[in-house]
């Protein structure tokens, strides 16, 4: 900023410099003093005013800043003699932007440009204003004006980018610039003038197209005209030109341009060839395209994507150009989509043999051990043959084996010897994942056996042997064979329907004894420990060899827990990961597994601690915080939750604010392709489901925090425009297309998405749960996909369960409903408090008014929306909730939505208090039936939960989060309704006193209120009693309980076997004389310490919850007399 010196209006530079210096060094008071003194000398200088406004804004005085800015603006407009300079405008712009008044900045620039029409600097400022406002049409118009003034290429490209942006965001609708053309004579004339200028005359083509076509033609015409007179000089300009032609499907023309003189703008040859290949392929000139791609592969033999394009062209298949890149650029499918059926047999054979010959040539020529593409290409070719129905049964397996390791060269080795190829690499399994899917179960087992045999004979280098063993485990994971192993040495414990598909699957698998599930975990852990010496000379920051073994062992142990419900396995899984982190504390994969395990155990502070060590920040907030945020949202750890939400929202809001300036930077640096990308990215983040949720949950959290004090709740509500702000967030426009940007790949198999946790059930041991990819919008890779329907993917679990994978549309619809319900909540709470209050006034003062009617009708309307988003018409929802309260229905019917239903009941009651519209069966003369209904529901559900709750230490995944939600939401909201009634019943002037006045109301309602206070207090007392019992349990007793799960001496099966390996290894390391860093690290290993931390962490959660309960209870008791 210090560089912005200048002397608008004759102000001496030194005076300005001192002000900027003070601002830059954050000496705002001094800066203000200087600016005030400057103003006294130049009272009419808009620049001096702008400086003052800037300082005021920085001092946190937005209102004063705005007023000074407006004054400066008036002066600018008023003084005809003043030369309007960009420095004044840009300073004003900075302040207006920080005050969220972009419109005012724009109008200043618009005024200036009107006054000095050909001033390029001002026009650029105006263009920038439109970039900030995302006004693409106005950007286009301004850029064209600048182009007309100076004829520079860059301004033409700015205009073309603005046209392309209109295409993206006005898709399917005529744009404002053109659609208004017919109505707005001036604009239409403008348009016609342009067309004439570009084309020389108005052609029929231009007049006939729709809005989009016209715009693209305009862009193309502008570029063509410019090229004729000036040519093009920037590679990015050429790329934009090609994209304009591509958007109009003018592939031939684009290809011609690229091969011509302009093509030389792209200096890197392969970059040009790649585009050329794409254009030819899209023009269906597959032969020419294949030739081009062949050239690219020859110079980049490891380019997998290019190989797929090449193969696609040979097989005349355009799938790779219309695949995921068009629809969802975040969650690509793991496999390659392809079309084959259209090819004739002989053509297919010929092209496949061409591809094979080319691939073989590449293999011979490849000079590096790290070039994998020509070998994987074999697999892809075999896969396509198989999909076409011409697969040779053994060829694909052979290609897979060859990718793992190759037979030695007969010329120099014994043919029987095999040499390692890629089988030892950590990426082997993920490389071949897509090819395993087309294998039959028999083939899978055959492959596994062969790989096992090969792995023993292909290398003696320990690191490679280890790598191959890990690969084998991974392949088994992918096949799902681990999920079908018996828990221990006994027969397969599944009860299968005879003749069922699942039974067939099971009987085809021959399980070697060593592959028992528990033994597998033992083997993995042992392998990890035995191979640790391989890593002792590595830098501590480097990944150690075999680290994945512990993640895999953990996954197996969790599966054992899932199938046996023996908590020991879960604890053992934790020990395995903690052990790994003791040795090397940087392994983020362990940390993520651990944090989910701790969350499941209600040891949330510990989970959060590990989360913090991941150092999630910036864009990772958007992609990684799903690991912790959902659990925290329903926990009592409010202080940490506030931090999480605040950091995340700040990141998202900051990006939203600065994104346009970065877009302008791309314009300025002539990287036009980035302009469109930046705008799309900003839109993507703005429509993030997680972002909307966080924006809604943050204020709800504030309400929860203040729920023991109605006045403070009202303050929070007031700051939210009484809930109206949040209602807007769930508006159709905002939720139109939600984006899901979470990276779900790193989640554990048992909780593949935040709302799915297999450890909560089913546990019948007959279920099988795959790793799946919920985020994929296309078909999901999975060994047991038995039927694929175009719009949905049905996965049949081999054992009895059939489960439909939620697709984006379905997920989006669900998310939208949740967003709607949550966004309604603050407004409903506000209206409920008002309704409760007005109902009392009616009782006391009998002065029901028209405004009350509005209140009731608005609340009813929201209740109807709420019910609808739960999937019910209002009347049915009321019927169900009443049914529940009179015992006709059970709580199970409401499943995971129970808290929403309880909230509904609470707000329904508040509405009914005032409106009396609810036609409910008559009570027993104790006051409004709806009131008793809520009391009853809260009491019954809470006490039922409490009765069935086990100590956390014995029952992980317990109902604690539900209980927390129950207390902090419906119960708290109901408390506020009660509070509002009581407060309104007090004689005016004495409202601050909160006791002793309910008795004054000798009405049915007051009885109901008293009864309700009694009931809710009773419930809360029960909850606090249970919490105290849990908290006061001696720590050592809990410790013994926990450790006894693992220390099961004398038993050769069950939990504890893996743990013993860890203990034995730690002991042997301690006893050894070695002093390497691994043994040093192991000195810190303390399983008792781990167990103790779990107990302490659980206790913290309970204590925090108790604190909330006590505070709410105190507030309720104050109402009771």
């Amino acid at each position, binding site marked *: 900023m210090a560089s912005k010196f200048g002397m608008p209006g004759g102000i001496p530079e030194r005076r300005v410099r001192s002000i900027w210096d003070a601002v830059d060094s954050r000496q705002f008071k001094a800066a203000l003093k200087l600016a005030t003194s400057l103003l006294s000398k130049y009272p009419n200088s808009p620049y001096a005013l702008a400086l003052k406004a800037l300082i005021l804004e920085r001092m946190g005085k937005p209102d004063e800043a705005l007023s000074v800015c407006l004054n400066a603006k008036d002066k600018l407009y008023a003084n005809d003699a003043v030369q309007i300079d960009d420095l004044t405008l840009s300073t004003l712009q900075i302040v207006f932007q920080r005050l969220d008044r972009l419109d005012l900045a724009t109008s200043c620039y618009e005024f200036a440009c009107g006054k000095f029409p050909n001033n390029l600097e001002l026009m650029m400022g105006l263009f920038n204003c439109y970039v900030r406002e995302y006004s693409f049409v106005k950007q286009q118009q301004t850029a064209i004006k600048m182009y007309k003034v100076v004829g520079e290429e860059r301004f033409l490209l700015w205009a073309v980018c603005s046209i392309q942006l209109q295409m993206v965001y006005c898709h399917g609708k005529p744009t404002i610039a053109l659609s208004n053309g017919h109505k707005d004579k001036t604009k239409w004339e403008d348009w016609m003038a342009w067309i004439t200028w570009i084309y020389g005359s108005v052609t029929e083509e231009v007049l006939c197209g729709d809005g989009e076509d016209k715009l693209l033609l305009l862009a193309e015409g502008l570029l063509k005209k410019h090229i004729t007179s000036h040519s093009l000089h920037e590679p990015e300009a050429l790329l934009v030109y090609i994209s304009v032609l591509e958007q109009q499907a003018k592939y031939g023309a684009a290809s011609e341009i690229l091969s011509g003189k302009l093509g030389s703008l792209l*200096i*890197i040859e392969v970059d040009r060839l790649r585009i050329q290949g794409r254009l030819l392929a899209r023009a269906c000139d597959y032969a020419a395209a294949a030739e081009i791609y062949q050239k690219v592969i020859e110079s*980049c033999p*490891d*380019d*997998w*994507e*290019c190989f797929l394009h090449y193969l696609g062209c040979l097989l005349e298949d355009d799938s790779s150009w219309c695949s995921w890149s068009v629809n969802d*650029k*975040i969650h*690509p499918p*793991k*496999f390659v989509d392809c079309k084959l059926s259209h090819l004739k047999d002989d053509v297919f054979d010929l092209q496949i043999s061409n591809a094979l010959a080319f691939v073989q040539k590449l293999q011979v020529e490849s000079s*590096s051990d*790290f070039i*994998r*593409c020509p070998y*994987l290409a074999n697999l892809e070719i075999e896969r396509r043959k198989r999909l076409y129905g011409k697969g040779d049964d053994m060829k694909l397996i052979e290609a897979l084996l060859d990718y793992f390791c190759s037979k030695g060269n007969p010329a120099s080795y014994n043919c029987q010897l095999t040499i390692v190829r890629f089988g030892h*690499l*950590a*990426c082997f399994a*993920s*490389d071949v*994942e*897509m090819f395993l899917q087309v294998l039959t179960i028999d083939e899978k087992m055959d492959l596994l056996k062969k790989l096992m045999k090969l792995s023993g004979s292909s290398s003696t280098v320990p690191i490679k042997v280890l790598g191959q063993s890990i690969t084998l485990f991974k392949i088994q994971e992918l096949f799902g064979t681990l999920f079908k192993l018996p828990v221990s040495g006994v027969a397969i414990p599944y009860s299968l329907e005879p003749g069922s598909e699942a039974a067939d699957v099971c009987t085809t698998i021959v399980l070697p004894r060593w592959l028992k599930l528990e033994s597998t975990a033992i083997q993995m852990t042992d392998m990890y420990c035995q191979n640790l010496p391989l890593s002792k000379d590595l*830098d501590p*920051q*480097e*990944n150690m060899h075999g*680290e994945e073994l512990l993640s895999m062992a953990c996954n197996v142990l969790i599966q054992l827990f899932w199938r046996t419900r023996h908590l020991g396995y879960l604890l053992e899984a934790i020990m395995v990961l903690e052990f790994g982190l003791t040795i090397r504390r*940087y392994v*983020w994969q362990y940390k993520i597994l651990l944090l989910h395990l701790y969350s499941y155990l209600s040891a949330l502070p510990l989970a959060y601690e590990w989360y913090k060590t*991941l*150092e999630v*920040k*910036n*864009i*990772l907030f958007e*992609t*990684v915080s799903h690991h912790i945020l959902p659990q925290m949202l329903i926990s009592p750890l409010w202080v940490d939750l506030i931090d999480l939400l605040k950091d995340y929202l700040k*990141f998202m809001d*900051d990006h939203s604010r*600065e*994104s346009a300036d*970065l*877009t302008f*930077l*791309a314009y300025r640096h002539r*990287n036009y*392709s*980035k302009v469109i*990308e*930046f705008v*799309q*990215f900003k839109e*993507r983040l703005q429509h993030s489901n997680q972002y909307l949720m966080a924006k809604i949950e943050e204020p709800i959290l504030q309400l929860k925090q203040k729920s023991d004090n109605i006045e403070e709740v009202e303050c929070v509500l007031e700051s939210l425009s009484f809930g109206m702000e949040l209602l807007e967030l769930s508006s159709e426009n905002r939720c139109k297309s939600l984006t899901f*940007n979470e*990276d779900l*790949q*790193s989640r554990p198999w048992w909780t593949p998405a935040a709302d799915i946790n297999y450890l909560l059930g089913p546990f019948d041991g007959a279920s099988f749960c795959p790793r799946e990819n919920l985020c994929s919008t296309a078909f999901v890779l999975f060994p047991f996909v038995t039927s694929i329907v175009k719009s949905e993917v049905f996965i049949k679990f081999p054992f009895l369960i059939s489960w439909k994978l939620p697709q984006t549309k379905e997920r989006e619809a669900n998310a939208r409903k949740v967003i709607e319900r949550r966004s309604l909540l603050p407004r409903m709470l506000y209206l409920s408090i008002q309704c409760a209050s007005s109902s009392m006034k009616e009782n006391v003062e009998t002065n029901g008014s028209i405004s009350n009617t509005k209140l009731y009708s608005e609340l009813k309307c929201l209740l109807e929306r709420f019910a609808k988003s739960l999937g019910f018409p209002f009347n049915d929802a009321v019927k169900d909730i009443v049914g529940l309260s009179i015992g006709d229905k059970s709580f199970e019917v409401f499943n995971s939505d129970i808290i929403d239903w309880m909230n509904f009941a609470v707000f329904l009651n508040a509405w009914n208090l005032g409106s009396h519209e609810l036609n409910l069966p008559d009570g027993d003369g104790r006051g409004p039936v709806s009131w008793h209904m809520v009391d009853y529901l809260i009491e019954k559900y809470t006490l039922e939960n409490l009765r069935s709750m086990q100590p956390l230490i014995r029952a992980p995944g317990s109902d604690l989060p539900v209980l927390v939600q129950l207390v902090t939401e419906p119960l708290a909201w109901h408390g506020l309704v009660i509070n509002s009634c009581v407060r309104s019943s007090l004689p005016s002037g004495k409202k601050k006193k909160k006791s002793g006045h309910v008795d004054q109301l000798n009405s049915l309602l007051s009885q109901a209120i008293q009864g309700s206070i009694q009931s809710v207090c009773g419930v809360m007392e029960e909850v606090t009693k249970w919490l105290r019992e849990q908290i006061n349990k001696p720590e050592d007793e809990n410790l013994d309980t926990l450790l006894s799960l693992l220390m099961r001496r004398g038993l050769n099966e069950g939990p504890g076997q893996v743990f013993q390996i860890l203990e034995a290894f730690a002991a042997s390391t301690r006893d050894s004389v070695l002093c390497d860093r691994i043994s040093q690290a192991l000195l810190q290993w303390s399983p008792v310490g781990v167990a103790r931390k779990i107990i302490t962490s659980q206790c913290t959660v309970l204590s925090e919850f108790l604190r909330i309960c006590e505070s709410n209870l105190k507030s309720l008791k104050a109402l009771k007399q």
Partner: protein
Amino acid sequence: MTTIRRFCCNDLLRFSSVNLDHLTETFNMSFYMTYLARWPDYFHVAEAPGNRIMGYIMGKVEGQGESWHGHVTAVTVAPEYRRQQLAKKLMHMLEDISDKIDKAYFVDLFVRASNTPAIKMYEKLGYIIYRRVLRYYSGEEDGLDMRKALSRDVEKKSMIPLKRPVTPDELEYD
């Protein structure tokens, strides 16, 4: 199996498995986007089959006269794809662009003095320690400024090491 292409904004939403690594810094958005807006040719990502992100490189070109040079700001590879010379491939790509498109004299980079594995790797790629920058990293750890001459620097003048360490204030560019 490496498809190397320009890095785009959406890759920011897909690189968490690379960036969760403790040595890989996750910068703020304006940092990434400034690089994308100004030097898109210096920001590349490598993808594996199944469109998995293997790693990426970000850099820029800056300087004047004979100090016109390419700069490697970050290069990182996901654990699954390490020990396959991917970083080497990405570095070569950046060097190639600096050399052929921008006609720079040399490429340089900064590395933590304690990051021995990285220093060794850069040395293997032909970089030398040009100078030590005292307390370059958050005022705590020294940084090493490593350089490799490009074809325009025929006499390899850019690679003559400085004898004395410098302070961050003395650096010509941030």
